[in-house]
């Protein structure tokens, strides 16, 4: 027994390494475990308190720039609104004619980005609202430019968002105007690729990419990005399209969570 104890003592560094190595592997394999989510949620609450002042300072430093941008946007939108009001009237009359049900609006909650983790590559952001505001796991997160991710961990007052550039993020999308659907995943920088596209799909550079609505998480027709390249390899049965996501993920300060029930939206 004593010899065994001395053996462990002699090689304690190797044993402790093996223990932590397998603990880390275990944690990696337990990523979808509910208990892990609960613990992460609780930690996220604590860390968001610490990073809130920094987020506030960052937000203040961008305020002047944002105000200028909003003024310009305001003028543009006023002009657009005029034409849209006319179009809306026309739309309503057409809708009545076709006796179609009017689409219900998305219910959004605004949130501040309080931190974006500390790993060397950005793959998540933390928002300053959680369960108390009705946030749940798997709710979509977007910015005016389009979808940026989904909620994966919810704490009382904070939530972690798996953003579009996480390696395991997948999104069912549709390319307009052709209507071809595929699966989007992150490629590099602000570029994603869409796979599972039909070989005969008619896709052009500049086509818009929106959510397909096939998913249980994302409502349909939310903007995602724009096609920048189409790859059609001879030996492949599918086409691959590369798209540029419109949202500036590296400098997010605010985001919106869609809290509406997907069934009600449809």
């Amino acid at each position: 027994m004593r010899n065994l104890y001395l053996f462990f003592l002699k090689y304690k560094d190797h044993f402790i390494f093996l223990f932590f190595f397998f603990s880390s592997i275990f944690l990696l394999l337990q990523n979808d475990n509910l208990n892990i989510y609960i613990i992460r949620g609780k930690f996220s609450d604590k860390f968001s308190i610490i990073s809130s002042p920094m987020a506030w300072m960052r937000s203040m430093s961008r305020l002047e720039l944002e105000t200028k941008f909003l003024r310009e946007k305001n003028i543009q939108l006023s002009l657009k609104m005029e034409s849209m009001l006319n179009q809306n009237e026309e739309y309503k009359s057409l809708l009545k004619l076709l006796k179609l049900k009017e689409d219900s609006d998305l219910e959004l909650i605004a949130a501040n980005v309080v931190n974006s983790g500390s790993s060397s590559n950005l793959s998540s952001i933390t928002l300053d609202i959680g369960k108390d505001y009705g946030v749940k796991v798997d709710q979509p997160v977007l910015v005016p430019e389009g979808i940026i991710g989904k909620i994966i961990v919810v704490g009382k007052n904070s939530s972690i968002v798996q953003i579009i550039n996480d390696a395991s993020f997948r999104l069912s999308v549709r390319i307009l105007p052709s209507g071809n659907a595929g699966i989007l995943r992150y490629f590099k920088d602000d570029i994603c690729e869409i796979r599972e596209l039909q070989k005969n799909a008619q896709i052009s550079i500049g086509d818009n990419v929106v959510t397909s609505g096939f998913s249980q998480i994302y409502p349909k027709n939310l903007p995602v990005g724009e096609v920048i390249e189409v790859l059609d390899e001879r030996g492949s049965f599918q086409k691959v399209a590369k798209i540029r996501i419109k949202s500036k993920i590296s400098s997010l300060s605010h985001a919106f969570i869609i809290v509406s029930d997907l069934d009600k939206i449809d």
Partner: protein
Amino acid sequence: MIKKIYIGLGVFFFQFILVDFLSIKMIRPDFLVIYIFYFSLINGRYKGIILAFFIGLLSDFTGVGSYFGLTSLTLSITAYLIGFLNGKYERLLPYVFHSIWFSILILHFFIISYVQFQTLFESSFFDFSLKFIFTFGYTMMFFFVVQFFFPVKEASHAEIS
């Protein structure tokens, strides 16, 4: 020892709070690996692995999309391997010593980059290599700055002297 843990926590909070300001094209420097590197080199494998695991875990708790546990895994591996160099500077040829720690840091960033950019690795190895070099290079830039104040050579035989 307690002081070193506090320094570790200080580095962690520095990384957590300020790393966003140093972010370039979504690539951020990894100060945690620099700290764990020096800590293991000075204090050896045993203490290094324990600190690396818990600091890695803290880093994962601050927010990762998926792959929760990856930071603790890579930091533990780095601490374990760097620990072999503890007090070895005078026993190894300098270029061998420097090549070993450099390779260990390459391995650390390769694991992280491979997991994070696996799609890129499959489809374009060149783009992946660029991404990996930038991720690695950006942290190494800070690492070399630290070198001026606290060279690896000194850190390695700090316990002997």
